[in-house]
């Protein structure tokens, strides 16, 4: 017989094992960064000293030194202006706003689309092909239409970009959530039937909670996709204030200042990772499932 206290101790032991793991993972971070840094510099050094040109010529323009890229954060873009990092952070904040709005919109649309499709086979058969087809249209092709179309209705540029980001994010949510809603254990459904539960009760008390792991997997994909969507959406919208604008701008001066574009890419990546981590943390708070290694 296991007492309540014993079960709790067992859980704590599992948690302490996981704490050890966390320390190891934390130690691994600088090791991985150092390895990536070393790999980049070693490649650059090897190609430059041997003069190899395959697959491309390596010099300070194609592959700037990592330390130069990070040093670029401190340099002003225009003489007398603020350092690059300041304008990039401003741009990142602007893009984050678009991406967040797009992510939220896409997640909500995707979720309710999945709920609709899960409740009607006819709807699923009729609608799902178009949902899939929507993702085969290149975002660069629809972005101008969205910006111009919504712009004529008085919608602000950044809001149009959010809609474009939502276009990328709703799809993984819809597809994964649909699968999650349908992947319910038949015994759990029978239990609900024995309580004479209606559709709504089954949806909110069983299907949705059971689908949350699927939903969070989709949200993690969507989180990074929404950042990409926002950056790409800024380009045809001619929005200068975000990271997309910064990329277009520094692209033009690449041969003169390659480190500025690389530095911008670093910030874009950081923003994507930040979105991903935000979803991961939320997942950990919401889902308190069995740790895999519990006996």
């Amino acid at each position: 017989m296991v007492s309540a206290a014993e079960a709790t101790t067992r859980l704590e032991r599992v948690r302490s094992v996981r704490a050890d793991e966390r320390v190891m993972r934390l130690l691994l971070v600088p090791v991985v960064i150092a390895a990536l840094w070393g790999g980049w510099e070693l490649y650059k050094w090897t190609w430059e000293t041997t003069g190899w040109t395959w697959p491309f010529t390596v010099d300070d323009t194609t592959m700037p030194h990592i330390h130069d890229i990070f040093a670029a954060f401190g340099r002003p873009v225009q003489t007398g202006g603020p350092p690059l990092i300041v304008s990039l952070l401003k741009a990142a904040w602007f893009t984050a706003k678009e991406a967040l709005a797009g992510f939220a919109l896409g997640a909500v649309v995707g979720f309710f689309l999945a709920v609709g499709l899960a409740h009607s086979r006819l709807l699923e058969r009729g609608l799902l092909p178009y949902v899939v087809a929507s993702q085969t249209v290149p975002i660069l092709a629809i972005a101008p239409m969205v910006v111009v179309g919504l712009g004529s209705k008085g919608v602000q540029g950044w809001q149009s970009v959010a809609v474009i980001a939502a276009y990328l994010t709703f799809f993984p949510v819809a597809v994964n959530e649909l699968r999650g809603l349908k992947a319910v254990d038949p015994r759990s459904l029978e239990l609900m039937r024995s309580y004479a539960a209606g559709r709504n009760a089954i949806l909110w008390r069983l299907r949705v909670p059971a689908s949350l792991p699927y939903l969070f997997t989709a949200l993690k994909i969507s989180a990074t996709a929404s950042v990409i969507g926002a950056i790409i959406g800024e380009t045809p919208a001619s929005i200068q204030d975000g990271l997309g604008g910064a990329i277009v701008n520094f692209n033009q001066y690449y041969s003169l200042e390659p480190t500025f574009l690389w530095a911008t890419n670093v910030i874009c990546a950081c923003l994507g990772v930040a979105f991903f981590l935000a979803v991961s943390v939320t997942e950990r708070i919401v889902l308190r499932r069995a740790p895999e290694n519990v006996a």
Partner: protein
Amino acid sequence: MTGPAPVVSLKGVSKRFTRGLTALVDIDLDVRPGEFVSLIGPSGCGKSTLLRVIGDLTDATEGTVVVNGKSAHQARLDHDYGIVFQDAVLYDWRTVGRNVSLPLEMLGWDRSRRKERVKDMLELVELEGFESHRPWQLSGGMQQRVSIARALSFNPSLLLMDEPFGALDEMTRERLNGQLLEIWEQSKSTVVFVTHSIPEAVYLSTRVVVMSPRPGRIAELVDIDLPQPRTFQTREEPRFFELVTQVREALAGRTGAGAPVAPEERF
């Protein structure tokens, strides 16, 4: 007609599945209030299907199913029964306490009443202090007791149990058998219990329904006249062994020797 009206009354019940398989043929059975009736038989005899027909989780093809004087469908809508499956079927996103209170939430009980009830039920199945644990922190036997607490939480007059202890080890099973009888005595409910263990059926029941397969039908009804309450000594009484033998012979008498065992009872 003598005595109180039956809790479950089956007349001429047959069940054929769409792909042509006949699961049950011409079942007549009355379960009286307070009875503990076990359905026993080899795989494919339709005992689980019969339990689902009583619970209106599947339809009978022919015949009438009356539960508490109304149709099985109405009885389900009225929450007249609680059900326990072979797996505990606990929702792992809910705590133990909130699993027990699930049917109460569906019935619209208010929070304080639910809380009180959950406490009582966990006491009944001897799981005090586990209210805020997660299902996966408990052993299989403990999970099944949570499942029983959930099934009884809204005081149904009928408890349907589908091989509830089939997945547990022998020692846990015997201990839970004893606890189940105590609960049955306290709650004064009627139990229909599916099992494939002969000693378990004899030990628990007031009556054993022996079924035979292909197609599933009732082969024999065996009244279990062992004195109540049953204790661990019950299993050592000569009468216990006589009844076990009687059930075993009823099972063997109707089953063809070496008949292949097919998992047809599920759908």
